[in-house]
């Protein structure tokens, strides 16, 4: 299990290859990456705030749950905080399993829980506005399928 909360940028491709090497024998690898999208008005910066200490605990707990439930061979979660520009990588999860179904479900489970249970908050800053991103009812609803 590889959990990282960091301000620095990361290289998703290099992380995918390192994860695949670390998960030898798994057969099926799924990755999800989240990228900063531009917004109406032109995004200058996305600022990500988090709760140091709780963040690492929450991500570790979610990753353990996913590992047990889907019998994953390996799990990775990387999530950035601080100021990001458009098209920068925000975060990435990866799962490894013998079977594709478990790898897909494990990654989707991680993302659903990470969205609503890990203490990160995003603020979108344009030339004329600075708005906290609101959570979506559908993100909370997504948890009910697990």
């Amino acid at each position, binding site marked *: 299990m590889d959990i990282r909360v960091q301000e620095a940028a990361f290289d998703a491709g290099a992380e995918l290859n390192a994860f695949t090497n670390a998960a030898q024998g798994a057969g099926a690898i799924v990755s999800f990456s989240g990228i900063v999208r531009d917004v109406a008005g032109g995004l200058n910066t996305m600022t*990500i705030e988090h*709760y140091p200490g709780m963040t690492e605990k929450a991500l570790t707990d979610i990753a353990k749950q996913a590992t047990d439930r889907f019998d994953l061979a390996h799990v990775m979660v990387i999530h950035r905080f601080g100021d990001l520009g458009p098209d920068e990588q925000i975060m990435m999860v990866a799962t490894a399993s013998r079977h594709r179904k478990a790898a897909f479900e494990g990654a989707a489970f991680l993302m659903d829980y990470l969205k609503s249970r890990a203490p990160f*908050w995003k603020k979108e800053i344009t030339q004329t506005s600075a708005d906290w991103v609101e959570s979506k009812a559908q993100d909370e609803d997504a948890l009910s399928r697990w």
Partner: protein
Amino acid sequence: MDVVYFAWVRERIGLPRETVETQAETVADLVAELRAREARYDAAFEDVSALRVALDQELSDFDAPLKGVREVAFFPPMTGG
């Protein structure tokens, strides 16, 4: 007891962290005490259904007892990922 605030709760209250002397038995009691202090607290806690609370870095709820708790955190619903 340490009380910490994140995102727009932090901005409305105007500080990220403070130490509070309180005898509040539950989170809801603590919220009532804070709201009674000043308008900025009253505004921040106006709609607790829009807020989440963590006790010692574990998600909890507003009915939870505070006995033994060292750190209470208030924040809006998370928007990670």
